[in-house]
């Protein structure tokens, strides 16, 4: 008898535990509504607009998904759009089901915010011709599927100028996640920024092969610092590399958002996303009934990418130099593809682009080489 009673208790405890676990899972697909009274009074303004977001990782506090979620919150606040999101959705696994569910629930616009969601987005879009789909960072479009992305390399280039000006050892470290064109492009733009102000300096790249293992990312940064790098940049979601720089007393460049909280002394500036610009544009188009499938790839002139405030350690002349280069984008003095304007040499010293030639968007999107002041290799057999 006593034994049975015990079993019952255990089962009850276990059930409670599992429920808590499930609540965690469920909590991930939260619908939030803002009770803002100010409705936009456009022609279609009578019907409440519903937008859904599919995220590849947990929202967290500093990374890629976090930056998108800020955009989601923005359109909810400003346009009174009812939004929902699903986070931590596996690419090529659960993604199609999650996207389909949002479509079935009648969401007007569905944003899928990871490259790997591309095929699932296209597949579901075929079955829901009246729903608008927007896929971030991909290249496949359809009648009801648009794409959007930001020219992060422009901000990377500007942060490279800061790094190149601040290094004393002429060795700059770069902790990179996985070798996809977006990451490679960022490294090259950064290196071209370094080269602009400091032709002697080299950018040392370490690949971690992970997006979410902060201990490893930190160790990768430490390896670079031990080899003499005195500025550390990163293409990672966690601020672990920033913390390594702070601990070892060297400088760092953040990514995604202002990471100065984690490294108040080390953090010089950061290349940041501001997705609300693009989300606002798309939502306005939908509200006005003028939405059409577009391939949006905006840069610093539209404010999709930006720099975080400078650390006090960055001297006035460096700030001025960065401002001047940034100004070139704003007043159209340089093409959007800048700094990918010849002469550009690869690591073997081959001339990739001759003087004055501009790399095309296609070339940027499929980039798979390092420029000549980068030290490191691009691992093969990766997307």
């Amino acid at each position, binding site marked *: 008898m006593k034994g049975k009673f*015990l*079993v019952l208790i*255990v089962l009850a405890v*276990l059930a409670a*535990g*599992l429920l*808590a*676990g*499930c*609540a*965690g*899972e469920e*909590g991930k697909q939260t619908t939030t509504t803002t009770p803002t009274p100010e409705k936009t009074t456009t022609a279609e303004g009578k019907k409440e607009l519903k937008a859904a977001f599919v995220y590849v990782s*947990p*929202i*967290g*506090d*500093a990374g890629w998904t976090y930056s998108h979620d800020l955009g989601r919150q923005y359109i909810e606040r400003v346009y009174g759009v009812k939004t929902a999101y699903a986070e*931590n959705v596996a690419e090529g696994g659960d993604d199609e089901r999650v996207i389909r569910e949002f479509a079935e629930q009648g969401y007007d616009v569905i944003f899928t915010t990871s490259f790997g969601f591309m095929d699932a987005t296209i597949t579901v879009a075929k079955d829901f011709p009246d729903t608008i789909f927007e896929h971030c960072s991909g290249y496949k479009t359809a009648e009801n599927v648009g794409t959007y992305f930001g020219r992060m390399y422009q901000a990377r280039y500007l942060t490279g100028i800061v790094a190149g000006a601040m290094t004393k050892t002429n060795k700059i*470290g770069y902790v990179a996640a996985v070798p996809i064109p977006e990451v490679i492009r960022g490294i090259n733009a950064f290196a071209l920024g370094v080269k602009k102000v400091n032709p002697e300096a080299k950018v*040392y*790249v*370490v*690949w*971690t*092969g*992970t997006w*979410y*293992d*902060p*201990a*490893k990312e*930190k*160790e*990768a940064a*430490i*390896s*670079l610092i*031990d*080899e003499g*790098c005195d500025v550390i940049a990163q293409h990672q979601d*966690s*601020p*672990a590399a920033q*913390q390594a720089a702070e601990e070892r007393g060297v400088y760092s460049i953040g990514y995604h958002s202002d990471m100065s*909280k*984690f490294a108040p002394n080390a953090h010089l500036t950061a290349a940041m996303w501001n997705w609300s610009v693009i989300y606002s544009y798309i939502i306005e188009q939908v509200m006005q009934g003028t939405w059409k499938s577009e391939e949006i790839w905006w840069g610093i002139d539209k404010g999709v990418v930006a720099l975080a405030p400078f650390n006090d350690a960055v001297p006035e002349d460096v700030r001025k130099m960065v401002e001047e280069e940034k100004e070139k984008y704003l007043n159209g003095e340089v093409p959007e593809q800048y700094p990918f304007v010849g002469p550009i040499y690869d690591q073997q010293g081959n001339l990739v682009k001759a003087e004055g030639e501009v790399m095309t968007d296609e070339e940027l999107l499929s980039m798979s080489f390092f420029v000549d002041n980068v*030290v*490191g*290799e691009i*691992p*093969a*057999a*990766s997307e």
Partner: protein
Amino acid sequence: MIDIGFLASLLASSIRAGTPLLYATLGEIITERSGVLNLGLEGIMITGAFTGFAVSLATGNPWLGVLCGGLAGMLLALVHAFFSITLKANQSITGLMLVLLGLGITGFLGRNYIGEVAFYLDPVKIPILSDIPLIGQVLFNQDPLAYLALILAAILWFILFRTRYGLEIIAAGEKPEAADSMGVNVDKVRYISTLFGGLLVGIGGAYLSLAYAKLWTEGMTAGRGWICLALVIFSGWMPQRAILGAYLFGGLDVLSFKLQATGVGISYHLMKMVPYVVTIVVLLFSVIRKRAAFGAPAALGIPYVRGRKE
């Protein structure tokens, strides 16, 4: 390129990366030596990492965080012990359940802690000794938990192989019926070993969030719990060999970064495989050689029921 500085950097990193592995491996060795298989390391570790971080943030005391991380690990181990020892349930399933439970609960509770800055354990330079070239940087400039792990391994070796109680643990794992007939309370020994194991695994997790990465993110153990299960086999259930194994695996983990930082191109895909390949090789060895040197405790994973022959 590969000089003293490189070596010192590599070895120091190996110890840092190996320390969380060492804690969890030592914990699992003690658990398994008593005959209980706990596959839930990944879940216990992440629970320790989260609890430690949350407590450190709330109290401002990282040591209290480490302690609570360990206790949280112990609590999960208690669930496992109850199921596998008292209820004689299938140990693999309870263990796997702990993985899901730990990852789920910490993911849920931990979302508000991502991006917080807590209070951490910093390296402590041991005076004079830390000035010795190479060895000083590698061995005497680590954080206190790294030193403690080494001391712990020595103590556990002593307890297991040099004391009567160690004999009882081993007996409970090898021949529980014989131990029972000698007057050993098998269930009690297994309970204590499992709880103590959970404590160490939890501390290993807390090391990750409070001394190593110094932040909290969902799933930050990133598979280290599974690596430790392999390490237990690698070390042949011996604490002294666990030291070697943990630092070796930790070193393999960071070697590719070190090489890349010096400009040597090396595929991280390849490097990621190495620990697993090493484990498979060791497993092969354990099959070929006699089991005394490499083999698992004979009654590992088998619930003990008095009077019943398995």
